[in-house]
């Protein structure tokens, strides 16, 4: 296959960027999208041109490092698939593919296709945990967790923190990420003592960095892990209860 790439090149955070056009020739349909970029980079190096910087690591769809906007869609055209798991057989010979970084105010560009997603870490630091000093936990089977609750928590916990939801949102909002993190912990018995404070702190921190949610739901379509927007509803409900109701009732509300 022969493909034409239009790739965003930008030397640094506060520098102007622009699209550069590259030919990707003799691409095997078996290649992953990132392996295709590897071969383009090899050719750039051979031609004494600085290779394209892009974030990637596990290439198994689980670490959440890869982050490419492919033809305007986060992670490209295949649903429920991170960029690293996208293969060239999903494209046609002769295609022109536009590759951009995540575009969101909360994710400043570092270089080329690489962005800074550390605002996500700030959200977790503000409350995305269950406080358990090392060694203080009771026997694991003393905490009974109904299978339904455990499965629902797992659905939320599957979030890989890639930021596709933010990139997909016209408002650059991080509701789906934050809701997945909150949902994972708030659905479990272990997460109840800190439930209301966690929700309020995380939502408030999220709003320092990201835009507002207007229920467009692009986030859920872009999510490589199919996180449901139902978790946003759960988060909003917990946020209201956390803000409005009396916190001293913590632990007594269901």
């Amino acid at each position: 296959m022969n493909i034409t790439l239009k790739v965003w090149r930008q030397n640094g955070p506060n520098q102007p960027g622009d699209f550069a056009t590259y030919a990707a020739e003799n691409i095997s349909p078996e290649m992953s999208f990132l392996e295709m970029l590897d071969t383009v980079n090899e050719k750039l190096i051979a031609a004494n041109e600085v290779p394209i910087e892009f974030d990637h690591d596990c290439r198994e769809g689980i670490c959440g490092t890869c982050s490419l906007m492919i033809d305007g869609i986060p992670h490209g055209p295949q649903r429920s698939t991170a960029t690293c798991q996208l293969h060239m057989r999903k494209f046609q010979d002769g295609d022109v593919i536009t590759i951009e970084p995540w575009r969101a105010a909360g994710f400043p560009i570092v270089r080329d296709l690489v962005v800074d997603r550390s605002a996500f870490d700030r959200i977790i630091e503000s409350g995305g945990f269950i406080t358990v000093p090392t060694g203080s936990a009771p026997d694991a089977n003393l905490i009974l967790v109904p299978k339904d609750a455990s499965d629902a928590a797992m659905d939320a916990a599957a979030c890989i923190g890639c930021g596709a939801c933010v990139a997909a949102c016209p408002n650059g909002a991080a509701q789906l990420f934050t809701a997945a993190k909150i949902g994972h912990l708030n659905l479990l018995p272990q997460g109840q003592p800190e439930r209301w404070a966690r929700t309020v702190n995380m939502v408030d921190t999220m709003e320092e960095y990201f835009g507002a949610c207007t229920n467009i739901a692009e986030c859920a379509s872009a999510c490589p892990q199919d996180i449901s927007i139902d978790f946003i509803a759960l988060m909003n409900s917990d946020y209201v209860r956390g803000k409005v109701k009396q916190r001293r009732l913590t632990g007594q509300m269901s």
Partner: protein
Amino acid sequence: MTLESNIPAGPLKEKWDSYRFNMKLVAPTNKRKFKIIVIGTGLAGASAAASFGELGYNVDVFTYHDSPRRAHSIAAQGGINAAKNYHGDGDSVFRLFYDTIKGGDYRSREANVYRLAEVSNEIIDQCTAQGVPFAREYGGLLDNRSFGGVQVSRTFYARGQTGQQLLIGSYQALARQVGLGTVNLHTRSEMLEVVLKDGRAVGVVVRDLTTGEISTHSAHAVVLATGGYSNAYYLSTNAMACNGTAIWRAYRKGAQFANASFTQIHPTCIPASDEFQSKLTLMSESLRNDGRIWVPDKAGDGRAAADVPEAERDYYLERRYPSFGNLVPRDVASRAAKQQIDQSKGVGPLHNGVYLDFRDSIQRLGREVIEARYSNLFEMYERITDENPYEVPMRIYPAPHYTMGGLWVDYELMTTVPGLYSIGEANFSDHGANRLGASALMQGLADGYFVLPYTVGNYLAGYLNTDPISTDDPVFAQAESAVSDRLKMFTSIKGSRSVDWFHRELGKILIEQCGMTRSQTGLEKALSDIPALRDEFYQDVRVLGENETLNQSLEKAGRVADFFELGELMCRDALNREESCGGHFREEYQTEDGEALRRDDDFAYVASWEWTGRESEPVLNKEALEFENVALTTRSYK
């Protein structure tokens, strides 16, 4: 140099208790006077840093990722072992200890492994309390499954992403400490040198990967939790950035490197599809619970799987190992697959795989059950290969996956450099010559949560009321300029070939000569080929761009340069070990029916290597392994 393993005296079962009673303590109010540096934020690093922070130490933690949550622990699929015996099937701390020693082919330390088995139960308690969504039974209790090399169900799991869920647990514990201010988190920061003063570790040199800025950091103790070196092989299941630089830099500063040739080649990976393959993808070993492995009887059989009649299929693991069948340990399964492919029985377009077939399980249990167990793995397989494993058998082939070797550490997890610790996959300690499935996550968290937070105090107590060595000390300036010079050297070579080209060539040598089987002639050839390729690298590598920006080629150049030296040590260690054990299979040492031939009289030791310079050979130090609680037997899975 004699190696002091510092194993406490007394019966095996009392060693850890007696150690904890006799060790020196740092009082709670004194902990804030100490500073500890942790490199790496995988399971071991994140859990150690979080625990240090909770105890009150001042912690600086560094990761080259953009977030601690991305460390490669995340990719572990299958599960984590513990001796809970929740299923009442005869498991116990002693059985987990015994299975791990036996699985490691009697090349690990009894005391360390027993401690690992002891704390395994606390890990499950800790992680469950943190909200790790382990699989549950309908009554709300925890579910378990079984893994290769054992005959009990002791593996806890969270769908096919146990590693991600455990890492999120320790990352969240770490994030809490960052929020509280006890831990300083440095992301996109790569450690490039350990700093020593008077023979003791006093700090590190770090490069900011986005600005190229080189900085120095001092502390009372330095912990390396930087994972393994499977990427020396180029094609492995490790993430692209996984590297051996931190432990290699430590080795060059005097920390000894043990059992470098003990590498694990995992049997269930998706075979390479073309020459541009950048990495290999693992399919969880848990698939071997329900999948049957086979190849066509006839060499060069070109028929599709469905066209090969039952009578012409060779279920070679079930045939050779009737009692363990498809669940033999990883090293045995990998070698058996290689033998089939070497006999031209490989399947798939490139004839580089064996089948893992779910047809019989689907017939027996129904497709729904198989979907519930493995759907995410099946989907992943289909995304990569475009084949549907519900209908066509999976194709699998072994790939480098884990390294049992690593920095030598004593019972306290301290390297031969005082004040320098190594935990998780980065050390050599617990898995001997072969690691059992679902034991890597266990070891990472054992070291980070339940061992190092105790043992580090025993060292720090001796430095109460002393400040860390100032970064104004000349040792820091020297280390900093050595790092800067090395980076400038890479960009100034201006050769003709990319870093990846050299890495791929190195990988070919290593997988060929120091992979699933090794031989004297092959290893000797590798020991002349690798230095030649290395010399070419230093003359002909092309690293474009500058130091002062994000520059992934420059990052890779340093890592590959270190892989050259590490790869050489792997071969040297393999050449020295004239026996077959675990993942190390020397062609000269096998039984008549092709099984590994261990030589306990001559090789029941840890081979610990000491750096003497690039142009001279390293010195071999031996730590004899003494087995007082298990009898050395020939592993048999028949």
